């Protein structure tokens, strides 16, 4: 391991964030920060910015998902399914951005113990996956239902109402319900995130195993081809888009509906207009029927409260409906053909299999393929149910807490609740419950909370303008943690690329390397989207450049020429969707969004994994 100064990033303990960010630390719980007391351990690790889950500065309450996955992802690897040499992934916040590290390997004797448990537990999961998935989805929907049904009183009233007294006094007030419901929703979100990783580590491990197997047989096989071999066509994450296609087809032939959907009006006005005629009402009924769960899809990644979901930002799905209807009118096909995708997948697997010369190898290949196929669908299914469906419910519920805090002047506006972390929100709720209990005229500390909120909003704004370093600390000699390799794409090459980005002025870089995620070559103007909401600025024919891409962006993939991301391996969303749409994509470049500017003419080669800046836009 070269522990030289040339091959390292800044020491996280000496690292200084810009002074505009001063005070950022107090937004987050202390265990989530770098600290002198853990310095020795922290210095031994390699911390890279997690642009998949936290491409943007973290609002304190949005940080809860990160907190939850640190526990869950790590626990499944270290304590439950016991992947022998791997440990968990630790997180630290720096200047409102999140850095993560695969934890150094455990002592040798632990590896042996884990191997034994792994051998006992993991085959069971693979052999019974289909049944286990049925159980999983059942309990997950139940959990979502519980979260949805949590009572969050919006008005505490001057006095407890009669129905809480008669016929039998309930025994607790609505102010207490507020406190309890928040405790419950915290428990539920942590439980949901436990479920999130229930089979994901194993799905990723199986994928990596299959990559190794395929590469041994076919040294030159592309990872994008392997991705095609294992990808499922009929998975939950594609359903929202499929429902839009279906609704668009349904509207065709009903001229009134078609015409309304094509108008340049806000979704709310279109809905009103549709209610005005029979065909429109029937169409709306159909929409209503599929809304839960399929419109519970984030307009972004599902990780940030301000992204919104289709269900509460109907302008988004309605704009997609409009473009689908226009395309249908032109006689274009809007659906992905599931049969074509599955047939192509089977053809590829079949032809590769035919090339295997030894009978033993063919058997091993088939076996390995069956292992990965038996579980891989989880990697695609869980995403919709957790990050989209459940997070949509969570954000709606949290907004209800925000509303009531605003109503009683604890906060200025509902979304300000996200400026407080999950340990602080109970203080705000207790402050409100106390003031209400103390009686009419008793003050809260609203002014204190609101000043804090204003200050934090400023810090986050400064953080958004800051370009955080890609990594901190010393790169490791080896990695055995499956997510580090597969999801974040940490390899020799990516680390080298990050090091390059860390040393070089961005304006001097003209070529980037990343994963060859989806084959093909494209050249065109870049559109750099650092914020999810900027998706609306995307113009047809542009090449999308983003920290990472989001599933609900699928409809824009019919308009762009290609995609480049900072982060993400071959099974990242951008990679999967690009392959589906036959667009070239290079993922995991590390620094694309800081090196490339909107308007630069770039050329991407999705087979070689390169992005070249052909011509810089005029400054």
């Amino acid at each position, binding site marked *: *391991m*070269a522990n030289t100064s*040339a*091959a390292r990033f800044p020491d996280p303990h000496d690292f200084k964030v810009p002074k505009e960010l001063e005070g950022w630390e107090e937004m987050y719980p202390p265990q989530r920060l770098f600290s002198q007391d853990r310095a020795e351990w922290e210095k031994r690790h390699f911390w890279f910015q997690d642009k998949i889950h936290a491409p943007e500065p973290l609002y304190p309450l949005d940080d809860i998902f990160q907190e939850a996955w640190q526990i869950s992802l790590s626990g499944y690897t270290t304590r439950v399914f016991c*992947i*022998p*040499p*791997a440990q968990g992934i630790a997180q630290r916040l720096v200047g409102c951005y999140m850095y993560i590290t695969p934890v150094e*390997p455990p002592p040798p004797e632990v*590896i042996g113990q884990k*191997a034994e448990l*792994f*051998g006992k537990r*993991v*085959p069971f999961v*693979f052999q019974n996956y289909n049944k286990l998935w049925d159980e999983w989805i059942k309990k997950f929907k139940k959990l979502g239902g519980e979260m949805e049904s949590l009572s969050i009183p919006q008005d505490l009233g001057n006095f407890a109402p009669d129905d809480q007294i008669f016929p039998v006094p309930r025994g607790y007030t609505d102010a207490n319900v507020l406190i309890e419901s928040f405790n419950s929703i915290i428990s539920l979100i942590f439980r949901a995130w436990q479920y999130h990783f229930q089979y994901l580590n194993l799905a990723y*491990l199986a994928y*990596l*195993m299959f990559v*190794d*197997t395929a590469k*041994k*047989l*076919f*040294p*030159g*096989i*592309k990872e*994008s*081809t392997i991705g*095609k071999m294992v990808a499922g066509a009929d998975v939950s994450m594609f359903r929202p888009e499929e429902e839009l296609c279906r609704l668009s087809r349904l509207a065709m032939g009903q001229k009134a509906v078609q015409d309304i959907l094509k108008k340049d009006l806000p979704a709310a006005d279109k809905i009103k207009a549709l209610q005005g005629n029979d065909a429109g009402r029937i169409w709306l009924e159909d929409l209503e029927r599929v809304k839960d769960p399929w419109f519970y899809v984030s307009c972004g990644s599902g990780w940030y409260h301000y992204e919104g979901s289709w269900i509460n930002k109907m302008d988004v799905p309605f704009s997609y409906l409009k473009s689908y209807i226009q395309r249908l009118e032109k006689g274009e096909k809007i659906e992905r053909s599931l049969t074509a995708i599955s047939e192509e997948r089977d*053809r*590829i697997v079949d*032809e*590769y299999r035919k*090339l295997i010369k*030894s009978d*033993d*190898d063919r058997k*091993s*290949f088939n*076996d*390995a*393929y*069956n*292992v990965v196929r038996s579980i891989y669908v989880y990697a695609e299914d869980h995403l919709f149910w957790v990050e989209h469906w459940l997070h949509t419910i969570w954000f709606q519920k949290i907004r209800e807490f925000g509303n009531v805090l605003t109503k009683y002047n604890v906060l200025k506006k509902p979304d300000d609740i996200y400026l407080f972390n999950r340990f602080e929100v109970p203080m705000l709720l207790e402050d409100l419950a106390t003031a209400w209990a103390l009686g009419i005229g008793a003050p809260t500390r609203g002014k204190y909370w609101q000043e804090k909120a204003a200050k934090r909003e400023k810090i986050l704004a400064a953080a958004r303008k800051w370009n955080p370093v890609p990594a901190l600390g010393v*790169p*490791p000699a*080896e*990695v*055995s943690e499956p997510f580090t*390799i597969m999801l974040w794409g*940490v*390899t*020799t090459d990516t680390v*080298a690329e990050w*090091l390059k980005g860390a040393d070089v002025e961005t304006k001097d870089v003209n070529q980037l390397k990343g994963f060859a995620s989806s*084959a093909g070559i494209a050249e065109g103007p870049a559109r750099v989207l650092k914020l999810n909401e900027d998706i609306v600025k995307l113009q047809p024919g542009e090449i999308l450049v983003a920290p990472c891409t989001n599933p609900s962006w699928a409809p824009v993939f019919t308009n762009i020429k290609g995609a480049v991301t900072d982060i993400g391996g071959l099974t990242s969303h951008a990679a999967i969707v690009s392959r589906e749409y036959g667009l070239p994509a290079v993922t995991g470049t590390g620094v694309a969004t800081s090196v490339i500017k909107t308007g630069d003419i770039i050329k991407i080669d999705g*087979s*070689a994994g390169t992005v070249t800046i052909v011509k810089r836009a005029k400054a």
Partner: protein
Amino acid sequence: MAEKWIYWLRELGTEHNNIVGKKCANLGEMTKAGFHVPPGFALGVDAYDRFMKETVVTDRLLAFLKTFKADANKVADTLKFEAASNEMRKIVESIKMPTDMEETVKNYYAELCKETGKKNLFVATRSAGPASHPGQYETYLNVSGAEDVVQNVIRVWSSTFNARSVIARARLGLPLHYDPIGVAVLTMVDAKAAGVMFTVNPVNGDESKIAIEASFGFGEAVVSGNVTPDRYLIDKITYEIDEKVISDKAAEFAYNPQTKEMEYKELPADMRKLPCLEDREIIELTKIAKKVQDHFGCPQDIEYSISGSLSFPESIFLVQARPESVWGKKKKESVLGKKSGWDLLLEKATTPVKLKIS
């Protein structure tokens, strides 16, 4: 001895290996299988035999050889062999074909001109030994007119007396005056680009890839190694072009109408680093190569030519196919070692990935 000594390519198949030589038999096989091969005909080894035996050639060669003494295993004697070779070739090339043979060759050539609709059609006269001796015998390009065709067939025959071949026979203790081969007379493709492709990655034996090399002009530039060709690596299954290495191609092998010779012509600076194949040509070549491999049942080494005057995809011709010699012969051993999917999973779970950070 077969009565027939001249054949249209479409009459031939691999079963005619010993009758017309491997190259002709293969070209025939490909023609019959529907591959796009330049039209042509082949003279069997019996034609060589007749020429040698029905004319005075054999007597004169034997007379010359009576006084020839040299040791093929002595480097110093190489010069003696070269001198003898010169002499023998002069003898062979000075003698005319038996009249009926000459007439027949001319008739075949006339028929070929008629078929292709070209007067004085340009053809290549290519050697075809019954065993594969790549590059040992000679090939003459851009031959035009019946007289020249006849003369160049004789030149190909006489190439069995080039120094290399004579030394090779001497070392093996074979007769020096007689080594029958076939000759292919093929329509020339006015190649804008040409080259070689392997239906296996020659670097690592990966059979899921096709490797294509290409250079401007005629394929001899690539085969002889005189020009560093462009290299392409294509996935046979997804048809993705995995690698494209465009080389600086200093020259092209082309026909000089003034000298009527093939020669290396320097390429203009703005052309040297241009790719010599279009993507659609690369993909089409890949599809063809796959079919050739399927037809012959083993990895192939294929020479192709792309016509500058015909339109795609009629522009693509195959001019040779033979079994790939390195990987094709290797016995495939198990690389995974009889492991079950579960073994492989456990192996993956217990093996950390090394990062090399310098």
